């Protein structure tokens, strides 16, 4: 009856990361960590998962001798995020009536 919610996105931290990235062009790992209040280790794992499924691009580089990780959402990620929000709305809309 319901569209299944994308299990990759239906997870608090991964959804938080995707919601941040959908609103900006790109963001550094430290910025995402600050906004999500996640630990570096946990965030690292979730970012890696999002990267594996192709929802985000992760670029690693050195800036003034410090390693820096920059994330940005991919077109596939935007599509998945939109589908997820639509599924949520459908779910909430229907369950509200029932």
């Amino acid at each position, binding site marked *: 009856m319901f569209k299944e*919610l994308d299990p990759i996105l239906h997870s608090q931290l991964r959804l938080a990361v995707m*919601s*941040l990235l959908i609103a*900006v*062009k790109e963001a550094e790992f430290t910025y995402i960590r*600050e906004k999500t209040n996640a630990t570096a280790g946990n965030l690292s794992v979730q970012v890696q998962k999002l990267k594996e499924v192709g929802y985000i691009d992760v670029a690693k580089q050195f800036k003034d001798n410090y390693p820096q990780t920059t994330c940005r959402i991919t077109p596939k990620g935007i599509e998945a995020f939109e589908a997820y929000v639509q599924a949520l709305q459908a*779910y*909430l809309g229907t369950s509200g009536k029932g």
Partner: protein
Amino acid sequence: METNEKEFSPQESLQLIHSMISKTKNSVADDSFYFLFWGWLVFGCCIAQYILKVYLLYPNHYIVWWLMPVGGIISGIYGSRQSKKQQVKSFVEEAVAYVWLSLAISFIVLIIISMTANTWQTAFTYYILLYGIGTFVTGSLIRFRPLVIGGIINFILAAVCVRFSYDNQLLIAAIALVTSYIIPGHLLRMKYKKQKN
């Protein structure tokens, strides 16, 4: 299974999306440096050229404009340092950056046109028009009204300017810089300082 994640409802999902997106809203960087730097620099050049030309009758009065490429270099160094510090880049910032890049190129093109066709009489009219476009678009994108108002004032000053002599156009350009760069620039700086505290 992920041990550090708890199940959460669709309602919580939507709330989370909403709260994360709203956290990025205030992420536009403080651009007031550019308005203040260029505002005061060009304002100073206009006044200096006016004094050199009108009061001191110095024939090479336009020499002051050699400060523009120097300003370009300082501005470029500041920009590249800032972009290194910046942790997040928004689409609005990118749009603003491209607007000013295209305007910077337009200023150079206008100088070439003025030199080639000797159209210095109308040069300031078009410079003021370009200041107006830059501040109006930036103000609209970052939703900062003083810049929008400054832009509108410059559109009017551009139309008025062409009726005056070159000497007086220098003073009108100085007024244009006060209304579109210097005053909004200081207000923008105050706004960011408040936001930080």
